[in-house]
């Protein structure tokens, strides 16, 4: 790299970073939007996720058929079969009870996203709070919390989930709570290490010197800095949780049989793997697409929100946003 490019890059980066400290929320959103438009994969992922969420919310309006409606004459009919000559086809075929696979997938999106979002919310809140306390107050509180995290991490989490669900039985809230209980430590670790690095920082010292209370330091100075890394982690965790929920439901220990869940659909389609490929293909593809979109989006978000990497995006932006 020649000296002049180096200078230009440095100047551009410094310039960009300065402008990134956009004082308004609007400025920051505009920056994110610009950065999103530059990364085609991330843009596609967010479009896919947004579509998933909308489909999940408006499932009754979007689904062509009632997901629970059985029709014995249509058992395991292949994709594109029409229930009546001029009716809308079963685009992804019918399952062993003659139910429309596409409609069940659409309602399944509800289940997967709801389980993912709720348990991520619970485990994130609990884990991040504990991590914040441990990192900020240090001392014996820190020791106790982090020891618990270490021991909990060593636990075989799927086994624990299996045992608890075996005792409590299948059910939405049982699954959500079990998954939250097995995943909170991840947030505690990340939050603690972030707090540890920030609390020695000049801005925290300055805040303390000007007489801020602990609560003010935490809410005004630490939390804004913690938010984006925790959100990135939460995005990754949503993908993980959706995968674990699918495994649990596949084993028959997750959600009750009456719920159209992607994992359950795979379990029910498994018997017919030799005769009805659509039963095992589409639900798994739905899981794959959702998890992939979440992972790609998290990778992008990490790069954009990391101040050390942000200039890469800023440098390529249109002058208007620099």
């Amino acid at each position, binding site marked *: 790299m020649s000296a002049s490019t180096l200078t230009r890059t440095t100047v551009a980066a410094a310039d960009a970073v300065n402008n990134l400290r956009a004082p308004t929320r609007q400025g920051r959103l505009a920056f994110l939007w610009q950065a999103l438009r530059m990364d085609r994969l991330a843009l596609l992922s967010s479009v896919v996720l947004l579509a998933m969420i909308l489909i999940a919310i408006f499932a009754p309006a979007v689904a062509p058929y009632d997901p629970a409606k059985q029709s014995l004459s249509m058992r395991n009919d292949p994709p594109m079969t029409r229930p009546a000559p001029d009716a809308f086809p079963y685009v992804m075929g019918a399952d062993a009870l003659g139910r429309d696979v596409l409609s069940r997938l659409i309602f399944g999106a509800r289940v997967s996203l709801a389980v993912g979002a709720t348990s991520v919310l619970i485990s994130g809140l609990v884990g991040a709070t504990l991590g914040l306390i441990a990192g900020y107050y240090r001392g014996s509180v820190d020791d106790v919390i982090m020891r618990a995290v270490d021991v909990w991490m060593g*636990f075989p989490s799927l*086994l624990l989930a299996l045992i608890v669900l075996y*005792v409590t039985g299948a059910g939405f809230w049982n699954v959500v709570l079990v998954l939250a209980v097995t995943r909170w430590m991840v947030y505690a670790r990340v939050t603690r290490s972030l707090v540890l690095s920030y609390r020695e920082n000049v801005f925290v010292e300055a805040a303390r010197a000007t007489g801020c209370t602990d609560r003010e330091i935490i809410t005004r100075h630490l939390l804004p800095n913690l938010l984006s890394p925790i959100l990135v982690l939460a995005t990754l965790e949503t993908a993980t949780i959706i995968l674990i929920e699918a495994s649990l439901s596949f*084993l028959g220990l997750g959600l009750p049989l009456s719920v159209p869940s992607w994992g359950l659909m795979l379990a029910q389609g498994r018997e017919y793997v030799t005769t009805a490929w659509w039963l095992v293909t589409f639900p*798994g593809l739905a899981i794959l697409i959702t998890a992939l979109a979440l992972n790609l989006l998290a990778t992008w978000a990490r790069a954009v929100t990391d101040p050390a990497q942000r200039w890469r995006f800023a440098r390529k932006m249109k002058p208007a946003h620099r």
Partner: protein
Amino acid sequence: MRRLVHSVVVLLGLVVAVFFFTHMLGDPARLMLRPEATAEQVEAVRDRLGLNDPLHEQFFRFMGGAVRGDFGESIWQRAPALPIMLDRLPNTLYLAGITILIAIPLAALLGIVSALRPGSLIDRASTVVGLAGVSIADFWLGLMLILFFAVNLGWFPTSGFGGPQYVILPALALMVRPLGRISQVIRSSMLDQLGQPYVTTARSKGLSERVVVTLHAMKNAAIPALTLIGDETAALLNGAVVIETVFGWPGIGLLLIQAIERRDLPLIEACVFAIAVMIIFANLLVDLAYTFFDPRIRYT
């Protein structure tokens, strides 16, 4: 030594947790019987298992049994649970062992080559594997492998246990996640190490690139990967529960699921205990490996 104590604590914690969930949250007699069992049947089982004794007596009896490996008699097979479980253990070790023995060297190779040639075809391929590893449900991958290689092409049996052709598909399904994650970590730690001054020194001494990469950088790059290998081995043993079910592989995972379906509590406990011991043992091995790669860490 400290690690060993830690492992024992985790194991005891697990046994306590199992006791808590089965005896206090649930009622073992109800858990063993079918939901339609009458009150008299439940009472009879409670009596036979000593569930009407004070809770602390039950707890000590349970802990004492677990420490000695005595989980009681399997209800399904009417024989002590431990031997039934031990009978299936080698099959799980075989599947997990093959998977790890292929996944780790392959991940190292992928990671190192992509670090040496960033942006190359192999680098991009390993990124895809890395993404797939964290996005694909492994049991679904198993189903797809069955659909494609066993049903459509007929190259491998769809499920079961036997010669080497039986282990290939389940091992492939189990492998994607550890392969993807470990190769990504090795790639980034290799890139870190190659930028270190000691690598420049080694190169300027006139050492061949092969010596620099294999003897100097690789050893140091292995350390961050080791932690992950421990975690991934644990995840692998967890994942084996699902994969064994998909492929009808007669290991502990399948046994666990069969025991759960038959409400066979002693057998469930034996299986959980066995998987936990394997996970803890794997973590201990990883800790020992640290001392090999990084002499600064010594356990006393």
